[in-house]
């Protein structure tokens, strides 16, 4: 019937949101902004205050991290369609932990912080899903960290 349905389907395909009732998904779609970026546009910068999360509808974006104020950015991940990005900063009220930059023309759905928080309050399944997602990311990060440590240890050992 209308364009919202397309966006509702998109939202439903995000694992985190798939369990939400369809009228809530529709509400989220209605209240969110459809935002387009050209290649090279920045969605947000590391250190910015966070006010929204993004769902990629089409296109690709790079996640970039810098270790210090003047340190160069390095690419840590790539985002494709259906990925949810920027959720950590809006959940915990911390500055953005990474920058996100469109690597090709990007179509996104921008979900405002207070909207997502409100939905989480109403829907424990959503809260749980987000929790699960975050824990998985943490597990992955921990795993990566221990691997990195081992590598460093190996390097040190081989240097000596």
């Amino acid at each position, binding site marked *: 019937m209308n*364009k*919202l349905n397309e966006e509702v389907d998109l939202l439903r395909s995000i694992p985190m949101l798939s369990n939400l009732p369809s009228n809530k998904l529709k*509400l989220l779609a209605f*209240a969110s902004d459809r935002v387009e970026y050209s290649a090279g*546009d920045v*969605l947000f910068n590391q250190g910015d205050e966070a006010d929204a999360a993004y769902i990629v509808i089409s296109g690709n974006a790079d996640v970039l991290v810098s270790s210090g104020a003047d340190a160069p950015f390095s690419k840590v991940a790539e985002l494709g369609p259906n990925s949810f990005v920027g959720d950590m900063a809006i959940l915990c009220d911390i500055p953005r932990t990474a920058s996100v930059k469109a690597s090709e023309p990007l179509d996104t759905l921008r979900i405002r912080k207070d*909207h997502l928080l409100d939905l989480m309050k109403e829907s424990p399944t959503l809260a749980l899903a987000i929790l699960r997602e975050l824990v998985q990311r943490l597990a992955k990060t921990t795993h990566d960290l221990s691997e990195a440590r081992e590598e460093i240890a190996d390097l040190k050992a081989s240097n000596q």
Partner: protein
Amino acid sequence: MSESEDYTEANRPLDRNLLRYVWRHTRSEQMWIMFVILASMPTYFMVLDLPVRIINQPIQGVGFDQVGATAKFLDFSISLPDFLGGQTYVLFEGFELERWPYLLALSFLFLSLVCVNGLFKFYINTYKGRLGERMLRRMRYQLTDRVLRFPISHFKRVKGSEVASMVKDEIEPFGEFIGDAFVQPVYLGGQALVAFVFILNQSLWLGMIAVAIIAVQMTLIPYLRRRVLVLGRMRQLTARLLSGRIGEIVDSITSIHVNDTSNFERAELSSRLSKIFFIRYELYQRKFFIKFLNNFLAQLTPFLFYVVGGYFAIRGTLNVGQLIGVINAYKDLPSPINGLIMWDQKRTDINIKYAQIVEQFNVKDVADAQVQAVNMEKIAPLEGSIQVNNLVVTDDTGSILVQDADFDLPINGITCAIGSLGSGAGATADAIAGLLKPSSGRLTLNGDPLNDLPQSVRGRRFAYAGSDAYLPQGTLLDSLLYVNKHVPLRPRDDANLDEPLHPRTELEAMAAGNTLLDYYADWIDYDAMGISGPEEVFGKVRDVLQLVEMDSTVYDLALRQMLSPTDYGGLCDKLIEIRKELRTRIEGSPLGELVEVWDWEEFNEHATIAENLLFGTATTDEDVDAQQLVENEYMRKVLAEEKLDVTLFEMGMELAETAIELFADLSPDNPFFEQLNFMTPEQLEAYPPILARAKESGFDNVNEHDRRMLMLLPFGYIEKRNRLRLLDESIQKRVLAARKKFHANLPDDMQEQISTYELNTYNPYNSVQDNVLFGRVAYGVSNAADQVRDLIKEFLAEKGMDDDIFQIGLEFDIGTGGKRLSEALRQRIVLARAMLKGADLVVINRGLNALDARAQERLVLRVLERARASSEAGRNERPFGLFWILATPNSAKAFDRVLVFGKQRLVDSGTPNELMTRNEYYQQTVA
């Protein structure tokens, strides 16, 4: 305005007695008016006397018994009383006139006397009025002058609106009274005395009756009036409290709303008004009872005259002529007596009011007027240091704010203090700034007590920025320059005045004891700002606004301002040119995606349907909003012609359905409602039944109310924002056609309500930005609004319009108390103007705490840089000292010296490095 100006008058406590106060200030005027009244008496009596003479002599013919008889006109002689010999001195023989010329002469004399008498009255009344107004002006000035000198601590107990009510309203009735204060009793008393003497002369007994009744009046009425006076005082106090209370309601309106206490406030108000009502009602009852009694007693006298006098007349002991004479004379007695009683009543009433007011203004510890003396001299920069010895400051409850503080503060040093809130650092800064009085210990500047410094030194060589910044209403520029207005420095330029001043302005100010300093002169101390004149103010102001990172805010304010082409004609024309250029630049470029410009031939998908139909802005305050459009007959007709009414109705149903589906189960304060642009949460509740009825009966049969409600919705619909795909091309085409029809035959009354978008006309009802843009910022493009703003800024800068626009931003009206700006911006303004002042020592007491920590730290560094290196980079300013009570302790490491406060004491002090090695608090808080 020499330094030796006399401040004894200003320092004298206000007189407790109004009459004494009035007499002291208007003695000579009162004497003069008394003299004029006496001088007017002879004409007055002649005006009364002449008619009798005209009737008796020329008309009735007394003295004209023979043909050709004459009478003397304008003869003038003085007869001495008998005990002086009784001789008569003829001063002027007069003219001999026959009967007819004599009548004419007397009549014309009467006419001229009436004129003279009227002129006397006119003169006396205006003179008295002016006298009263001058006194009123003097009192208002003196009272406010005292407010300016109240000790700062006193303001904790004072409500602004109560003071305002005293200075403005409670004093008002004094004006009328002051002119009559001394004249009235003398004048009326004289009249009464004359009538009285006449009565006594005619008949001692009847005179005694009159005396007795008056004696009763004079004792009874003041007795009855005692309660009236008490009530009058109560009325005054309750009314004053009422205005204080209303002021409080206004100030605390947010907490009333968030706590749902409005009904409590209503009840409180009602109980207050009820008190006032009963006081006033009783007052009326008593007042009118006294009036009744007064009238009764006044009429009792003639009653007694009739009975007693008549009895004597019948008995033959009193002749009838005498009785009539007495009764006639008595006619003149009650009105002066009543007048006297009224005067006395007014006097006591006003005296009580006056005493009530004076009590509030004779405050203990009012500053000596010398402290705020006008000082036209340039104040030499301060050097050396402030010594703080055993400083103890307590608040009015006696709890200690800081104690045993002992340190030296070099005037040009870069010092900061850290410590938690209430640690004593803030109190120390306030004591140094003179806002708190030390309860013991000493504050000295190079050995001299700091508190003895006149405000002209303190206020010009020190700058202070606290956290609670109250900015009086005015433009942004006014509030920035405010701190540099100490004395009038350049004479006023009459060309700048909206209307010329009254030629007597200065004379009247003098007569009322007001200051003679010219408000309209140029007060700005350019020298202190380090510039040579008004033409350099702009650059200087822009520079400090840049320093406090406010310049882009000011620019944005300018872009959001609405300009009237009548005031800014040239600028508006330029903006139109820029609009056209911007338009050509946007067309066909990637920028086109950011903006959809207004085009008479195109539907604007980023604007509402209503905007598309109107193709213009409402000119009235009450917007030509969707509601009115639906109800407007003309618009309905146009819509029907294009069959848009049915379409809109169907869209409305669709929108209502979507809104109900999505929002029905949300609470009205849910953040999602912000996104529902075509409906309010309250309206949503009304729609389900409307929708049900509409579905059943369809467009043709549904009732008018439902139809209207549904047609309302799509007016606020924006296709690109709401993305419901309701607007296909055919609808857009029809909207375009309707737009053209609508404008083609626009009725006159609507023409005035709409300012149409025209490429060549500046629209005064749109912001500067909208005027330049002449279109709508696109939805769905990342940061479109920011990009467009940057684009416009860039473009304006390119066209050399930067300064013009910035200037408009400086004209921004900041609202009462600066409330149209956020607290953070107000604090930035206060900091900026502290920088403008060219002070030797800038004291900042957590002056930026409304900003986030990073911004605070950034600003601290920027100000520090300025303080240390003002003389660099071609700036002609001197470096200045800082005493900064930091809300962000992290910044402390950039200062030369750090004072550490804790538990109301100075705990430690030293350089950042020293403290890093030995002070635990410093180590913990400064990273």
